[in-house]
């Protein structure tokens, strides 16, 4: 059993350069044993490079990296991938086309009498029973993905890395496969790190999330913390939907379309973040006009121009205001977030 109080991954100040670009800057992370951890960010933010550093395919320029009690990079040390006991599931699965399913899964196992037993154990775990002798190209996308997962788990890695594992799947399959993968990983008890640009994926599957932006980790937290208390404007913008107003603060206060709010003391420019669902239709609230509507079935977004000139998007239930355009009054459900605005 993995010890929940052990640290599985400890990265300190990892920096990695690809060609002339600084892909990852000063990455520091701690991942608990047994945790399913997600690195989330837009494409090109350095998340895949971070994963490849953990696996040993990229060498950090500076910083250090421990997997459990072993240092694997930094201080002049660079343990090659084959000696890290890290399993990896690639975006394209990277199955070996000249081997059967069972041969793929057995590839990472040493030749020993237990080999076949371990293969069938993993086959069972991943629900691949009866597919063992198939050629890889005969499998569906979801099955290939489970083979990749089984192959990575077979040698009992200390850490499982998943690089955008669901992006090659049909959208209609994704939610189901996600749940399956989470269950398999949790059953195996392996610590896992998943890289994705899909916020829904990260929020629904991960125990904790690190949000990356332009090579830096901007926030680490549980899905709930990341969504409801983003610490940077980028996190607020990237994860979920938000009305964002970039405004000037004076003497610890900022004038927003919804009145004065306290601002961080030293900040001069701030961003006020209001999630569309944090607004509601409220008699006696701030007046405005509905100017457009996006209908989604389970809910809808109203575009409202307030009388004070600001535009805002409001999420309301599917049966509200079916007439569309017309006057409306809005109120806040909770205090909006005020974050320091960063200069781009």
């Amino acid at each position, binding site marked *: 059993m993995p010890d929940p109080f052990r640290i599985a991954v400890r990265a300190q100040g990892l920096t990695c350069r690809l060609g002339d670009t600084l892909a990852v800057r000063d990455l520091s992370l701690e991942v608990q044993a047994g945790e399913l951890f997600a690195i989330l960010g837009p494409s090109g933010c350095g998340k895949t490079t971070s994963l490849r550093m953990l696996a040993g395919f990229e060498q950090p320029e500076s910083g250090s990296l421990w997997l459990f009690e072993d240092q694997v990079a930094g201080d002049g040390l660079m343990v090659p991938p084959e000696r890290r006991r890290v399993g990896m599931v690639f975006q394209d699965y*990277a199955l070996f086309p*000249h081997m059967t399913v069972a041969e793929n899964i057995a590839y990472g196992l040493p030749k020993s009498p237990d080999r076949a037993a371990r293969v069938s154990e993993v086959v069972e775990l991943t629900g691949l029973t009866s597919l063992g002798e198939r050629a890889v190209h005969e499998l569906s996308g979801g099955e290939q993905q489970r083979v990749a997962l089984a192959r990575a788990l077979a040698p009992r890695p200390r850490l499982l890395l998943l690089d955008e594992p669901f992006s090659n799947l049909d959208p209609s399959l994704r939610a189901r496969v996600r749940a399956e993968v989470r269950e398999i990983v949790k059953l195996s008890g392996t610590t896992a790190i998943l890289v994705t640009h899909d916020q829904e994926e990260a929020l629904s599957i991960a125990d904790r999330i690190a949000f990356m932006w332009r090579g830096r980790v901007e926030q680490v937290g549980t899905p709930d913390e990341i969504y409801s208390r983003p610490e940077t404007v980028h996190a607020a913008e990237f994860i979920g939907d938000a009305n964002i107003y970039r405004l000037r603060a004076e003497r610890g206060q900022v004038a927003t379309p919804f009145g004065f709010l306290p601002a961080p003391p030293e900040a001069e420019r701030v961003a006020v973040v209001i999630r569309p669902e944090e607004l509601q239709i409220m008699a006696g609230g701030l007046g405005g006009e509905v100017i457009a509507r996006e209908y989604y079935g389970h809910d809808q977004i109203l575009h409202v121009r307030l009388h004070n000139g600001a535009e805002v998007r409001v999420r309301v239930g599917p049966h509200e205001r079916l007439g569309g355009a017309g006057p409306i009054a809005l109120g806040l459900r909770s205090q909006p977030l005020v974050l320091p605005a960063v200069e781009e």
Partner: protein
Amino acid sequence: MTSLPMLNRRSAGRARRHAPGAWLILAGLAIAAVSLVPPVYLVVRAFESVDTAREVLLARSTLQLLVRSLAFAATVTVCATLIALPMAWLVERSDLRGRRAIGIVGALPLAVPSYVGALTFISAFGPRGLLQGLLEPLGVERLPSIYGWVGATLALTMFTYPYLFLTLRPALATVDPRLEEMSRTFGYGRWRTFRSVVLPQIRPALLSGGLLVALYALSDFGTPALMRFDSFTRVIFIRYQSAFDRGNAATLALLLAVLALTIVAIEVLSRSRRRTDGVRDSGRPPTPVALGRWRWPAYGFVATVFGIALVLPVAVLVHWVVRGLNAGVAFRAVDDVIWNSVSAAGLAAVAAAVVAIPIALLGVRYRGHWFSRSVEVASYTGYALPGLVVGLALVFAAIRLPWLYQSLTILVLAYVMLFLPQATGATRVALLRVRPSMEEAARGLGRRQTAVMRTITLPLAGRGVMAGAALVFLTTIKELPATLILSPPGFQTLATRVWSASTDARYAEAALPALMLVGISGVALLVLSYGTRR
């Protein structure tokens, strides 16, 4: 790790954005350096005495040679087009029955090495040849001479038109039929539509196939030599043999090399500017044109071409083999010649396959890196140059190195230079199947780099590497000019045996090795067409 700046990082692919590793750089540098030996030595040798070089270059005879060779290449190209374009149109656009079979058979003349074809034409139509023998009872004493311009043009046209045929067919097949229908709705007839709509769209294919034929006509040694037509290659060879004129030979060879490289450059440039719009996307094949009574002349045309380019050479060779068997000379010294051919070509195939690996690795894993591209371009030099030119250049380079001069080593080296890109192409296709993530997955599963190479990379790429080697083997075995020039004394191959027997009109001795070469080339053609599919 050496750090080389990326020329184009975007195209370098996700997994390998680094510069190539040290061993790849060393291998690449070595390959590039050796590849550039022939052109460098030609320049050195040609300008050893600047006065002589100037004299040769400015001589009236050189100008005549240049004009004659270019006119010859142009004539062959035009004649080949006159065969290939109608035949490709019949196969792709008409309702002629048996057009599928014609499509396959139409490429087969490539299996007849042009010097073998030339020898069969000479023995059939030449003085005291088979045709005259047949006509003698009718009182025909002399036939018009086959030698010279006419014979050389006939032979080269017949055995090179497939290059054009093969490039024109897909071009004709992918012209969007809707464009033609559009033209017809404007009231233009079939011929007008062909000229104004179809022809412009197949022009790139026509140009690139035509340049290929022209390059072949200019570079070929065996046909002009047997047909006694004074093309560049024949003149160079004669001057080279008359030992006093070797400097002249080098200057002329340099001139020929420049011509050949110019043609290749035009071809590459025209290909890079080719537009990709106008590619058919309707997915509907064009409606075949009903030939009606015109099908009889069409059959006549196809039968004539196949008769001359396929039936005649094979029939003549079989005839001579039978006569040779009766006279007991058919097998004279064929055994050791076969062994020589197989061992030289085998060594060349293995060497080319090995050398191709670093080039293909650079091209696939470091695509777009300036170093990869330079190595690749350099490795193409020998492929673009006539075999005679490469052979001569290597003689000049090795003449002061007795251990190398006229050794099997230098012969194999020449073969590798001439045919390396065939191996590179096959190996590259194979390596593309091995995605970098597969190798990384294997390493992540605890295997060392050497084990990954053994269990993943080689099993996946091995077949392609072997196919490349096979292709080099099959092409090498029929190579003539470099073999003539560089072979160790007394070392004869199937090709040189055919050559020496046919220059003395000992056709019965030439026939069996020639027939073997036709068979081997046929296999090569199959390998090639199988390999390029998919």
